[in-house]
């Protein structure tokens, strides 16, 4: 399935992600990493460490609702793969980001922004792995999962 090339919207989206990352570091000294924020929300270290994560996640979750209220259009979530792919993919991502210490936002944006060698390596590895996986599911196996 073809999707439209949207360089301006995507650049705008990226800038907003960057603004959120800078604001979180400037105000609370925290890395805007989805993995770390979620993990600390599910398994909190302390009560004080939980509130900022919960409110941040509430902000993320309400974004599509606000988009819908403001524009009257619902946010497009088109999933071209099966429920099995969601379960298997979700489990592997969960284990992977826990051992890898971060995901696209934590390593790919905040880590590379600090020129962290760990984040540069992690990002190269997960990007290559994702490209290889899609090549296999779409062009070797053919039908996708």
């Amino acid at each position: 399935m073809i999707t439209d090339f949207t360089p301006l919207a995507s650049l705008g989206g990226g800038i907003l992600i960057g603004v959120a990352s800078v604001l979180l570091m400037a105000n609370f000294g925290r890395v805007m990493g989805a993995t770390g924020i979620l993990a600390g929300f599910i398994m909190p270290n302390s009560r004080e460490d939980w509130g900022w994560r919960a409110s941040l996640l509430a902000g993320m979750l309400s974004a599509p609702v606000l988009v819908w209220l403001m524009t009257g259009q619902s946010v497009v979530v088109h999933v071209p793969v099966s429920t099995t792919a969601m379960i298997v993919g979700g489990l592997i991502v969960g284990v992977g980001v826990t051992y890898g210490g971060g995901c696209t936002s934590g390593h790919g944006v905040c880590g590379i922004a600090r020129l962290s060698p760990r984040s540069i390596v992690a990002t190269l590895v997960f990007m290559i792995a994702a490209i290889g996986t899609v090549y296999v599911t779409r062009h070797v196996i053919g039908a996708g999962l």
Partner: protein
Amino acid sequence: MRFLITYAIGLIFGFGIILGGMANPAKVLNFFDIAGTWDPSLAFVMGGALCVTALGYRFVLRRPAPRLADVFHLPAVRAVDTPLIAGSAAFGIGWGIAGFCPGGALPAIGTLDPAVLTFTAALIAGIVVAKIIKAKSPPVGRIA
């Protein structure tokens, strides 16, 4: 007041993810499908986010402390080790299978799309299981 600020930051992040196309697996998977229906849009998301963050961090991290907290919480681990590489490779494989990364899925939960909810439940299960296994293993050497 603090939580209002973090809420607003989460909202900005969520808008960015949605506008950029990261909450839409069809678009994400096409970004990885270089040999097929390639859609390079997500390079602009990464590029934009990285430029703003790199520039902003240069000013922010020069300060003695954040505005509303005592210290900057930056990762202490510096070594490029086996768990980092194996974990990141696994993450990439899962991302290529499902089309969601954690940052893309979390704002998408708000759409109540059943696929997102399924992915997030599996993601949380994966994180919890891995944390429990990690906690039971010696920190260095064993897994690697």
